[in-house]
């Protein structure tokens, strides 16, 4: 079965249609219709969320997808309340900061482990890789103690610090730096660049697709992260969007259309980004999935 192991899917392949052009026969038409119906079913929860967020209260419990009289009243109400706006900003700051940190550190470590020969290299690699097996949930109690001791509770840093670097990202970047020829690095050394310059100006531009894939994963992961922000934040002002939405939904007498509006606010940014960069994101997800 050696042949099997050498077959490695590639990220770009998923974007090209390989199927030979067949004349449209009945089977193909039925297949298309069934898949189309399934796809519509898949997006129904998102569609109902958006549609309900645009409905007046008296219409919310009707099953029609298209609002009879669409209104942005719910959005005005939720945003005027102020809390959602604050949570949105918190989530944005945290997701952006952790993304930048991961881009820098994961790639720096991946690059070092890939391109340098030094004592301790193997141990560092195995040590970082082994952290992949440790579930976050095992660390939340010690992280909480640490945050309590250092006064990090209820702060941006407290929410962010566990995710500033990831073993997954490091491993992903290491894999991609393998594709950067050593000759390029040697040539840059001869040109008199120092190692930091070589990493930043020579190697990094060559792995841009991988950096983008990493950025997507880290951003999405931190934008939707729930358990740790729930634990580490106390004050309503410090909540992230998921934590805020959870507490908002749990308040007594909050109308469903307002919850749907909050859900839409926390989901729309990533959906819009996805719709714009669709091909790019799918390729990135496959890349990260297969190599990471």
């Amino acid at each position, binding site marked *: 079965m050696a042949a099997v192991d050498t077959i*490695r*899917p*590639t*990220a770009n392949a*998923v974007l090209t249609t*390989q199927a030979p*052009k067949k004349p449209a026969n009945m089977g193909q038409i039925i*297949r298309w219709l069934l*898949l189309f119906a*399934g*796809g*519509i079913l*898949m997006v129904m*929860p998102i569609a*109902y*969320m958006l549609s309900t967020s645009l409905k007046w209260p008296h219409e919310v419990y*009707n*099953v029609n997808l298209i609002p009879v009289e669409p209104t942005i009243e719910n959005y005005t109400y939720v945003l005027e309340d102020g809390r959602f706006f604050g949570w949105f900003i918190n989530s944005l700051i945290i997701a952006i900061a952790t993304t930048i940190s991961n881009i820098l550190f994961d790639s*720096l*470590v991946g*690059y*070092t482990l890939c391109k*340098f020969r*030094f004592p*301790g290299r193997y141990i560092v690699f195995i*040590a*970082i890789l082994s*952290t992949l*097996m*440790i*579930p976050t*949930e*095992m*660390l*939340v*109690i010690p*992280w909480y103690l*640490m945050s309590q001791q250092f006064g990090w509770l209820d702060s941006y840093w407290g929410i962010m*610090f*566990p995710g*500033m*670097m990831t073993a997954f990202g490091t491993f992903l970047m290491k894999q991609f730096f393998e594709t950067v020829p050593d000759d390029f690095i040697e040539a840059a050394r001869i040109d008199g660049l120092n*190692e930091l310059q070589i*990493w930043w100006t020579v190697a990094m531009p060559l792995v841009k697709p991988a950096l983008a894939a990493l950025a997507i994963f880290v951003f999405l992961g931190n934008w*939707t992260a*729930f358990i740790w922000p729930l634990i580490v934040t106390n004050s309503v002002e410090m909540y992230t969007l*998921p934590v805020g939405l*959870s507490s908002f939904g749990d308040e007594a007498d909050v109308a469903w259309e307002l*919850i*749907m509006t*909050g859900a839409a606010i926390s*989901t729309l940014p*990533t*959906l819009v980004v*996805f*719709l714009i960069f669709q*091909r790019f994101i799918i390729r990135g*997800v*496959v890349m990260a*999935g297969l190599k990471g």
Partner: protein
Amino acid sequence: MYNNLSIRQKQIVWAWAFLAIPVLFYVVIRFYPTANAILISFQNWNLLGSRTWAGAENYIKLFNDPVFWQVFRNTFVYLLLGTPISLVISFIIAYHLDQLRFMHGFLRMLYFLPFMTSAVAMAWVWRWFYQPVPIGLFNNFLASVGIPQVEFLRSTTNALPSVLAPAVWAGLGFQIIIFMAGLRAIPRSYYEAARIDGVSTWTVLWEITLPLLKPTIVFIVVFSSIGFLRIFDHVFNMTTNDPGGPLNSTEPLVLMIYDTAFNGFDMGYAAAQTVVLFVVLLLVSLLQLRILRDR
């Protein structure tokens, strides 16, 4: 001084300069807390008082706790329902989608979209769907066609699958994309050879496609199993009025950990539960790799 070093020595200096902050990070934020979690699991501690040695007390308490066994069962039900269901559905969709050209990208987008949503937001959307008449969408649909109502989140038997459904739904897109990448990697020549030999589509699927997809299947099984064993966001948000309810019927291990640590402040007991979670994840992953790789 730096200039006197050989190229090799310079490399060592640079490598460790680059690694200094990350190594510190991994030691302080990953390894030390791991060791600390294991240590706390052998102690009694309510977050305010001092940490006292408890020996194996927390573990003994855990294994004698009927709630723990209920939770343990629930966690495996999530795994044993979630992983096969999402594997089969995502393979069927990927297999057929792979053979279509017309609006291929559009269909793929429809299936992938749920992956880009936030679990918390979607848990609330599904929670609304599950409400009884006249609120919930599903029951309103059922009522409009004259089918009796279904108690989704209020019944001890239906609540767990109801909570699982949005988790499966959100993960399908990722698995479909990974399956399609796996399918694309199979050389066309295999299929052409099979066609020349006049092999049926069904045989091609079982004898060529599935065996060659094994690395992809192993990846998806392990990846999704870890996800289902760690399910939390959906359960917590769909049952906030009675987390893990009704009657603990939806409570997974992570929710029990959260509850013990941050509502009960029994840190030692919660830490013992996290160690059990770690061991379960490790054993399940190793077992799956073993079974799937060897075959």
